[in-house]
């Protein structure tokens, strides 16, 4: 009998506010240790937190985007535990009354089906600092620059049933936070990371005991960690063992998870409402203002791409998976065949980015440049093949499309006299093949096309070459 995996995700998205959630310090990444701190985020005696309104608006935006209930009254609570990079000895979070309640997210599965994943809640909290173990032999350094960075923790229902579904959910949420401009989505720097709750059960049976895998900061790690957990738990269950409820860490080098602490060792966080912060209360007007400022969201954009550009669902889905790609496509597609633009963005461009290990944000070819390139195909200045050469060139080295066409003499030969001259030379040079063709070996046409294109250094218009060749070879046989 098969096992069914049950997965729920807790995603921590760092909100990209300019300042921290409870003080005015900058949230910029990469500054020298402890330079972005003040009495509040250093937890000096007597310092008090004051809520950053921008973080609240970003939480509301995410809530609206997942069709969630926005709680007009929510409460900050203290999560108490000792750790050197937690300067107050407690983290300000939300516990019983979070700002975002139940919502949903639609994900596209690899087989093209769609699935609705429930969102349990999303709450605001502050990030901790960092412990630095390198460069301090026998000691630990503490960097509190990150302490107090706003986080939105988005908790899903245990609705996912495969690693692929979990990855699809995380990717969709990742796209969403970037669409909304609430989080930069940088997974390597930890701006967007997740914990996965994984358990196995027989289909239809109650949920099994789960293990929580912490701090997964890539889609691939999420997939690997779940796959590893599925195998590990299956081995235990099938050998008659019991799963221990525990927190586990994913070791990316070994591709396995290992135990961090069991439920028995877990902290009693002694949550209670933070008396330094009044309950967070706002009215419908504030929600309305955030709603009015929301950008077009992925699903709506995909539908529009299908309608406006006549693209198939698959293309529209790929192109709208990220706001940056969608914006890029829409810039390219102006005055260019929409399907051709889609093929180029999805194929050549995303392929080249992927190969170079780049994100759209770091794309070396501006959308306007690709648009000019495609326009030169459209107006027959260059052939599609030459266009691919030019694209590779400007992707690697930069440069202007028209300047390259001119300086390298890549303009397509469309002068029928010039093409006829080339054809005559080839026919004259290959009498045997001409005879064979005329004797019925039709396939030799490709040979002649190749020879002519070669002689033109790839610049002859292929359609014209084709038509003219047929004509001349036929003419000669009469």
């Amino acid at each position, binding site marked *: 009998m098969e096992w069914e995996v049950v997965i729920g995700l807790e995603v921590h998205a760092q909100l990209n506010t300019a300042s921290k959630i409870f003080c005015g310090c900058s949230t910029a990444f990469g500054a020298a240790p402890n330079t972005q701190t003040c009495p509040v985020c250093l937890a000096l005696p007597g310092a008090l937190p004051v809520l950053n309104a921008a973080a609240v608006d970003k939480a509301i935006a995410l809530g609206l985007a997942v069709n969630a209930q926005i709680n007009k009254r929510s409460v900050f609570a203290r999560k108490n535990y*000792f750790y050197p990079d937690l300067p107050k000895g407690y983290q300000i979070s939300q516990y019983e009354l979070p700002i975002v309640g139940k919502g949903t997210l639609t994900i596209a599965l690899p087989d093209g089906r769609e699935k609705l994943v429930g969102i349990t809640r999303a709450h605001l909290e502050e990030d901790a600092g960092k412990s630095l173990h390198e460069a301090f032999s026998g000691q630990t350094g503490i960097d509190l620059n990150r302490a107090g960075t706003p986080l939105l923790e988005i908790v899903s229902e245990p609705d996912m049933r495969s690693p692929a579904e979990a990855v699809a959910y995380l990717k969709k949420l990742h796209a969403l936070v970037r669409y909304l401009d609430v989080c930069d989505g940088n997974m390597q720097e930890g701006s967007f990371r997740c914990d996965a709750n994984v358990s196995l059960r027989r289909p239809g049976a109650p949920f099994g005991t789960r293990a929580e895998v912490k701090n997964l900061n890539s889609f691939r790690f999420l997939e690997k960690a779940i796959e590893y957990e599925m195998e590990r738990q299956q081995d235990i269950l099938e050998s008659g063992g019991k799963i221990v409820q525990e927190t586990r860490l994913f070791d990316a080098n070994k591709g396995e998870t290992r135990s961090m602490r069991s439920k028995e060792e877990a902290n009693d966080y002694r949550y209670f409402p933070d*008396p330094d912060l009044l309950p967070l209360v706002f009215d419908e007007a504030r929600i309305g203002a955030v709603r009015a400022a929301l950008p077009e969201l992925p699903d709506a954009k995909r539908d529009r791409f299908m309608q406006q550009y006549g693209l198939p669902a698959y293309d529209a889905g790929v192109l709208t998976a990220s706001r940056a790609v969608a914006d890029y496509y829409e810039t390219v597609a102006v005055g260019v065949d929409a399907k051709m633009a889609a093929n180029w963005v999805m194929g050549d461009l995303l392929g080249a980015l992927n190969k170079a290990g780049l994100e759209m944000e770091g794309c070396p070819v501006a959308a306007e440049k690709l648009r000019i390139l495609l326009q030169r195909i459209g107006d027959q200045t260059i052939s599609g093949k030459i266009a691919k050469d030019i694209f590779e060139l400007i992707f690697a080295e930069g440069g202007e499309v028209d300047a390259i066409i001119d300086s390298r003499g890549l303009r397509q030969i469309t002068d029928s006299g010039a093409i006829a001259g080339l054809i005559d030379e080839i026919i004259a040079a290959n009498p045997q093949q001409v005879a064979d063709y005329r004797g019925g070996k039709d396939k030799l046409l490709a040979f002649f096309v190749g020879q002519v294109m070669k002689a033109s250094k790839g610049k002859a218009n292929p359609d014209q070459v084709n038509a003219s060749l047929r004509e001349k070879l036929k003419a000669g046989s009469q």
Partner: protein
Amino acid sequence: MDLSEASLRELRDALRSRRVSARELARFYLDRVAAHNPALNAFITITEAEALAAATAADGRLAAGEEGALLGIPMAHKDIFCTEGVRTTCASRMLEQFIAPYNATVVERLRAAGMVMLGKLNMDEFAMGSSNETSHFGAVRNPWDLQRVPGGSSGGSAAAVAARLVPAATGTDTGGSIRQPAALCGVTGIKPTYGRVSRYGMIAFASSLDQGGPLAKTAEDCALLLEAMAGHDPRDATSHPEAAGTFAATLDAPLKGLRVGVPEEFFGAGLDPEVAAAVEAGIRILAAQGAVIKPIHLSNNAHAVSTYYVLAPAEASSNLARFDGVRYTYRAAGVEDLTDLYQRSRYEGFGAEVRRRILIGTYVLSAGYYDAYYLKAQQVRSLIREDFRQAFAEVDVIVGPTTPTAAFALGDKAQDPVAMYLADIYTIAVNLAGIPAMSIPCGFTAGGLPIGMQLMGNYFTDGLLLNVAHRFQQETDWHRQRPALASAKG
């Protein structure tokens, strides 16, 4: 002019008319501190050089024609307020070496007003205590009887004002910590409405209860001080948007028709008959001025102490977690690992009473106990608030004793925490409700110890309380009595 008896207005006039300079005034009070502090132990830190420099600066401002009610007047802060460049200990070994890099809002406001800080005042460790015996820097002595406690936690503040070591001091009040020592030392002190005075830079004991306020000789002085201290502070989310107020202008308003409630629950068992008699006499003085006296009930007051000793330790257990031996606090020597660092630094850095309250607070917030203790206490807190709401529908102020007895002997209750906690039986409900209250001198015991009368008002009626207190002080001279200090130099 006797500078040590002068009111703040008189000092201001003397400064303005150049009968005395701010520097001379600072010198005068620093000399009194030097003469009497060794016996009283009211100061933890004396900042003579800084005080004289600040006084010189105030003289410059006076010479430039600046007029401020407090400009050039000496004072001292309870050592719970962070003072930039001057150590802020909270009377704890934990912060013995801590020098704050910033000023509390209260400190900043009084500095801006031109007051001259003479030093930092002794207190119960982290404001946890009612006798000032829990200080790491030793007990403060009551100026009226050196073998007795001054009350706490603002014991140094009350003792310093009573002994005329400063004309004014700041204090904080979480469960009576301004009013109880004011009563035991025979001075005037007000705990303002919660949200009136910024808590920024005031080291937190129980955040939902803590409130800073002034102690001085008279209600009029307190009114002037509170005007400078109060005001909305964007750095404190619990600071009220309309925290600022004028209190001095209404001090003389007549009391005719004032409805005064007297809670029966404040005059039951446990109240010393001498205290009861003095407070009852005080109430008759109000009646003689036209106030209408009404018996009322605060039926849940009996639960105030136990409610407080769940909620205050709960908040304290979390507030004091930042004192962990990692950054600016005391750190135990030769620690073996992180757990050892935490445990020993906190065990050695905190005194017994602080440790007791952290343990109580941790317990009542723990899984399985939260509902029975913390949540239940919050429910009782609502009932206590409701008691006051109903009472203030019928009366304008509530009057009763501040404390059940006058000052007790040093060591008397030090070994019995519950007996000590009951010293605050009349003051705690006020903090749970968040309303303003003050203590004013209303008599003496046969043994010559001061007795305090407590005035309680509805939210943001701090001005009315000061008005009632001021009118009372126009008719009485209890607040003019001063202890005879045995000092060769004084």
